């Protein structure tokens, strides 16, 4: 994967995705490895995403790399009207790899085409966020011991949730059974469902969360955002429909784990946090190992 870009999860083959997860496992065992001490990592965050940025910067620091960058457009030349192309060409002079987050769809693909150094997409608008997908896969494999033949429940906003779309597509490479729980107006879009159908995989749709809890190996919770609803009454109706609390987990399988891309608001109540089935904070930590694996393999030291 030396010198490769990672823009969309499909840019890496199934084997390459597994390779990244395997390398990440090595970093989990031994997180601080001074193998990129000569490298400069640029983190260009054209829109704020503190969690993702800190995760990348932590990953780079644990590899001994130097980090340069900005955390919002306001603190970059973008506010002076510079084009994305010019920003990328300039920053590529200063760094060996660019990690970028941008509010515009397709910006990361475009940046990778103009950049002489590799680009990792840390989220481009509503399009892709492949490092989140890899850390989700890592978390699933870690907790279940495999990626094949699992019952995965996605809960909440399946229509706009970028992480749900990318993870769904990645999991269609395995014999996954999908359980899709959402309000009717936030169902998984047909262009994502098409990938499930193409592989002839089993999927079920629900509006009731309780129904899937005993069936699931993974419950992947997402946040329902008020701004997704044109009718505020509709939001009021569904906003508390998918709040997971500890009592609801009584019938869950022993191996079941709850994932969430975070930030969480009220869709998982705090009494779940101490349940051993809660895995979302560990999931965030796994993001650092996966990002270490990506930086190291793209820069050719793993």
């Amino acid at each position: 994967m030396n010198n490769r870009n990672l823009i969309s999860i499909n840019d890496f083959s199934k084997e390459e995705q597994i390779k990244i997860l395997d390398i990440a496992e090595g970093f989990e065992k031994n997180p601080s490895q001074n193998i990129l001490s000569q490298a400069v990592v640029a983190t260009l965050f054209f829109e704020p995403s503190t969690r993702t940025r800190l995760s990348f910067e932590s990953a780079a620091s644990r590899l001994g790399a130097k980090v340069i960058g900005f955390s919002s457009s306001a603190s970059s030349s973008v506010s002076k009207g510079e084009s994305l192309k010019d920003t990328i060409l300039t920053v590529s002079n200063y760094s060996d790899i660019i990690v970028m987050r941008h509010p515009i769809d397709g910006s990361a693909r475009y940046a990778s085409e103009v950049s002489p150094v590799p680009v990792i997409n840390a989220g481009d608008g509503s399009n892709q966020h492949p490092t989140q997908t890899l850390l989700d896969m890592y978390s699933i494999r870690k907790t279940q011991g495999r990626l094949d033949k699992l019952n995965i429940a996605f809960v909440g906003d399946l229509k706009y949730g970028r992480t749900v779309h990318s993870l769904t597509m990645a999991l269609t490479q395995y014999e996954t059974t999908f359980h899709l729980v959402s309000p009717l107006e936030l169902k998984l879009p047909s262009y994502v469902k098409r990938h499930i159908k193409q592989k002839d995989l089993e999927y079920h749709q629900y509006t009731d969360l309780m129904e899937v809890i005993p069936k699931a190996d993974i419950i992947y919770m997402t946040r329902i955002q008020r701004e997704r609803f044109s009718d505020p009454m509709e939001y009021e109706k569904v906003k508390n429909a998918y709040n997971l609390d500890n009592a609801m987990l009584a019938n869950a399988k022993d191996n079941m784990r709850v994932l969430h891309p975070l930030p969480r608001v009220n869709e998982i109540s705090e009494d779940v946090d101490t349940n051993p089935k809660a895995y979302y904070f560990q999931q965030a930590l796994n993001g650092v190992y996966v990002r270490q694996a990506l930086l190291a393999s793209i820069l050719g030291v793993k």
Partner: protein
Amino acid sequence: MNNKETIKEMQVSAIENGSVIDHIPVQGVFQVIKILNLDQIEDMVLFGNNLPSGKYGKKGIIKVRNKFFKREDINKIALVAPSATLIVIKDYKVVDKTVVEIPDRVEKIVKCFNPNCITNNERITTKFDVIKDEDALKLRCHYCEKTTSKENLVFF
């Protein structure tokens, strides 16, 4: 020469050498002119629209003198004129007749329907993969990965 061909010739006169694009849907003629940049051509360009057609009821036709299109160029019009035929004329005679084919990739000519796509925000040539499944033709943007359906096609 039978009657039908005589009528045609009277409506849009014949060319000695060049290309004829026939059987263009009537709503597609001006888009074809735009896609093939025929407004930039210095030689003679003739076109007719709403001409009677046995197959389609009405049709459009374009004749360009001394112009021979490349396959990949002519296939670009398949998005608006999938039924079109390309006829190559030499010495007033038909020497080749082919149908246009829907290409796998489309570049430059179509705008991405997603307003939040980078191609609508910076000066970038658009690129699409053509998806032909379920009979409906769709373009998938190389950049934002969103699909633009046929009804939403906007040409530059």
